[in-house]
């Protein structure tokens, strides 16, 4: 249980970072922390005590296996988050070219 709570804390740290940080790069890093927390959560729900990897071997007769499906989900979501991060960083770089700053309080041409 303590692991789940720590995982939630990690998630909230990330959300806090995205909401309150002023620097574009720090926002991107906070977003990474949120993704780590969610991936950790998916791995945690797949974990079984004393479970081994779910690959069939001749002769072996394991009693408890870990759940392989969330592991597959994690690899997929890592790829998705890679795409997000690359996109975010490239947009941040182009923003720096235009505004000469990473500070979001100075990047405010849109209003209304």
């Amino acid at each position, binding site marked *: 249980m303590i692991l789940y709570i720590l995982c939630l804390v990690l998630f909230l740290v990330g959300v806090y970072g995205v909401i309150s940080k002023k620097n574009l790069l720090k926002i991107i890093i906070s977003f990474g922390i949120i993704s780590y927390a969610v991936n950790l959560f998916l791995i945690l729900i797949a974990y079984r005590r004393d479970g081994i990897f779910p690959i069939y071997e001749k002769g072996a007769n394991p009693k408890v296996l870990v759940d392989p499906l969330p592991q597959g989900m994690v690899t997929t979501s890592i790829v998705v988050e890679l795409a997000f991060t690359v996109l*975010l960083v490239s947009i941040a770089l182009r923003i720096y070219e235009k505004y000469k700053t990473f500070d979001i309080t100075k990047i405010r041409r*849109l209003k209304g």
Partner: protein
Amino acid sequence: MIAPYFVLIPLVAAFLITLFSRKKKNVAVCLAIFAGIALLILGIVSFVLVSKADGPLLYTLGNWKIPWTINFVLDYFTSFMLITIGIIALASLVFSINYMTRYTELWKFYTLFMLMLAGMNGFVITGDLFNLFIFMEIALIAAYALVGFGCEAEELEAAFKYTVIGSLSSIFVLLAVGILYAITSTLNMADIGHNIISNRGFILYFVYGLLLTGFGLKAAIVPFHAWLPDAHSSAPAPVSAMLSGVLIKTLGIYALIRVFYHVFSISTTVLNLFLILGAITLLLGVLMAKLQFDFKRLLAFHSISQIGYIILGLGLGTPLGILGAVFHLFNHSIFKSLLFLNAGSVEYATGTRDLREMGGLGKQLKPAAVTSMIASLSISGIPPFNGFFSKLIIILAAFQAKQFIFALVAALGSILTLASFLKVQRYVFYGDPHGIERKCEKLPLCINGSMIFLAVLCVLSVVLILPGIKELILDKVVETIQNRQVYLNIISGGQL
């Protein structure tokens, strides 16, 4: 065997466009238009097939049994959404033939557009909760890139905002999917619907909250709406038409309906929440729109307000309310994309989006003036056009459900919308010309064609509500949404 082609065609088109169009410029346009036409035809064919079978059609990848496979489900509601996406995508693609010529690297635009289309179609037809997340990401990543396509300062700023908020909401959805998997040990939506035990108490409400936040952010329901005006007004006009016309509805409204009506059985708590959020969204959107002087930004705020109508109709929970919501969903996607295309054509001709700098354009841009008049009358609910009927149904449904305050709010929102669009008409197409420089005297053929196509649809879609045709299409969709058991039964059988 029709279901996979909805994802396959745009994906293959995107691949071929990147492969061939660096050398030959026209290949990209031709491939994209061809894919758009094929998807629209397939959408209509799928509706006919579903009508023939009179129930959901199931397609399982690799013929595996259901809990272990990825499955696609076609039912009335899915086909209805697919047709809507097809119509708007085709109109936007035809519009962008001329409009996008002022940008460079056009093959990238068409590739991203096709990827967005693949994501949206996949999102609609999938029957698997994790695949829902994946297709959502495909559509969203393409949409982020398209919002920032022009690479001007404002566009990049809007794209960054949209990316951060959008991906945050996606992470919420992923967390909810993980918790649902932990509860039910399955990812199939119908299977989850079977296995979910409604009195799980706290944890289920946590999932409700996560999903409502995640999809509510996509649909721009009011506490989560801040990104929409920036993103939708900064994108190129055909992309705005796509985003406002169908993206917020597929990723937001469709997902809310699918998850809350089919996966969980709808509860009065959620319905009341929908009602209140819908009413707030409706009023706040239209009030904010009245303050705007940027043409596209004004339209974006109206998108928020119209989403409020749809959520309000859903929240009533009666068949009539859902009918109004579904019909308004279709109507709004048509007239709102038409309005965005109008804004794009005015921008094409004059180079500005500020209402105060325009004036007297009605004579020069005759097709844009006429079609935008039709769209304005539709969105503000003036009788012969489609918007009137869907709003009337929602208001009647509110009266029928004895929610008089919400009926009053819906009527008030409609009046404020009319006032706002009278302002647009007066500033842009009537009044004195301010002598702004015009980039071209007449609009090109493709821009006019796509606008007239949508304007004709604005009038024609009234047919959907006529007795006789209503039973064939809209009533079936409403029945599909209401009847959860039919969706859950696909697990035990299904054809195609």
